[in-house]
């Protein structure tokens, strides 16, 4: 079932001479884990802003085409209405936490919905638990590490129980282990709660294994869309400059030299297993 559907979506920022996204038509299904990637400035972030109504309501500008998110026409509904369905987590954790304690930050959206205090308390505790940061509830956000801060940001979006969660390069400031923990939290939410997940990411090495759908954008347009395997092994993806996982790269190098593995690996485990077979038979 489609939870996001766009048709010929074109958007131009106020004062810009050319559109940032152009004729984007795509469908994202309920429960999908989507990786949205492409070179800097390709329109990924703008597309994310469309999904929760920041475009056009916050940024103004000119939006053409149709966009339905969780059954709502984005052009017709305010950002706060969409916020019940779509949560957006940004790249820099520092600029999306504004309270003086973690729990207060997580409660921010619920306070805006005027949720009664008792219920809010429960919801906040649940969100903190899901993000694995219950013990940080009363800490001031600025004393936390980047990884912890980003988990607070996830919890604060999760508290609103959205159907869709969009994360715009959530790990670019984190060390690899911190990044991996974030991806695991996101994956858990996707698999256990069925939250449709859209992850904007350059570091596909780490993120690829969680996704079932990859969208590659280039110059404001959707260039490629399909399963991770299809996309990573395609010549187009390489030409656009997608950072193909090393496991897939190794597959390609071997293939070029006449050794073809049975299928295209995306993760290191898959690559190791495929190689194991070849090595055994050799």
């Amino acid at each position, binding site marked *: 079932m489609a939870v996001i559907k766009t048709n010929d979506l074109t958007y131009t920022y106020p004062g810009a001479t050319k559109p940032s996204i152009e004729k984007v038509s795509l469908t994202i299904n309920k429960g999908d884990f989507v990786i949205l990637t492409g070179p800097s400035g390709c329109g990924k972030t703008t597309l994310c802003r469309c999904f929760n109504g920041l475009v056009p309501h916050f940024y103004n500008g000119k939006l053409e085409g149709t966009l339905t998110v969780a059954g709502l026409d984005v052009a017709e509904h305010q950002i*706060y209405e969409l916020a019940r369905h779509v949560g957006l987590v940004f790249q820099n954790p520092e600029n999306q936490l504004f309270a003086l304690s973690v729990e207060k930050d997580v409660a921010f959206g619920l*306070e*805006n919905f005027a949720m009664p205090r008792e219920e809010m308390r429960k919801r906040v505790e649940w969100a903190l638990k899901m993000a694995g940061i219950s013990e940080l509830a009363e800490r001031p956000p600025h004393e936390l590490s980047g990884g912890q801060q980003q988990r607070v940001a996830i919890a604060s979006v999760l508290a609103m129980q959205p159907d869709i969660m969009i994360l715009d390069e959530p790990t670019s400031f984190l060390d690899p282990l911190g990044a991996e923990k974030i991806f695991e939290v996101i994956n858990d939410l996707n698999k256990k709660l069925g939250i449709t997940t859209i992850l904007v990411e350059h570091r596909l090495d780490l993120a690829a294994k969680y996704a079932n759908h990859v969208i590659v954008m280039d110059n404001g347009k959707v260039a490629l869309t399909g399963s991770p395997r299809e996309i990573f092994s395609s010549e187009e993806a390489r030409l656009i400059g997608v950072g193909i996982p090393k496991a897939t790269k190794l597959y390609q190098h071997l293939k070029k030299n006449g050794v073809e593995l049975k299928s295209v690996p995306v993760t290191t485990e898959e690559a190791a297993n495929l190689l194991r077979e070849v090595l055994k038979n050799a």
Partner: protein
Amino acid sequence: MSVFEGFKFRKVSSVVHNLDPRVKFFFVLVLFVMAVLFTNFLALLVLFLVPLPFVFVAKVNRQWLRSLRGAALLAIFIFATNFIFGYFYPTSLSGITQPVDTLFEYVVLLERSVAMTLRFVVLISSFSVFFLTTSPDHLGLALQQSHVPYEFCFAFTTAVRFVPVLADEAQTIMDAQKARGLELERGNLFKRVRNYIPILIPLIVNAIRRSLELAESMESRAWGASKKRTNLYELKLKRADYVLVVISVLMLICAVYVWLFVPVPSLTTLLSL
């Protein structure tokens, strides 16, 4: 990083910290009124002593001393003006009508000037106790529950939240420009002011960018969804708060009574008896 450490707020818990900020503010206000009522040295000395237990219970003595030290220059100024004015216009001093010349009159003038200085110190001291023991989020909450518009309270807590962040950022920018050969302390006054341009511009540009991101994030989390938003925290008066309210009211009543009916002797007359 170093210079700005002092700006950072910390969560501390003590009996005084946990008092309702509104009650604490009322207490400070009472002290304020009393300090204005009295010009007498002994009365002001008592007023100075009243908030001291709070300072020690809350263990903020070092910060408290620092704020007093910060006010020292102004205190000296107040003392000096009072003394000089008292000398040239003695009529303003009770009990002295002729030019100040006897030793006794000098002492009266001195006591009077010290009292006026002490009054200022009492004000500074009690307000600093309030701010040193009230966490910013409590203060924001108190504002909100006192029907100050939410936008204002939000702006206040967010500002507090970003002080350490901006301070760190300023330090990084300074380092980045120093690494490109900028020497802040070089040149005459005009040149020195100009030296700060490469620091101020990135700081401002980044602050604007940051606030835009902040706004985006707030919007995404349903800012403005309902007219009357709720709040995770609520300030409720506890027993200690009621006790402080009673103490404050009693203090005020006593003070007004004394002010009306009991002449407080000056130290000079007391000693010359």
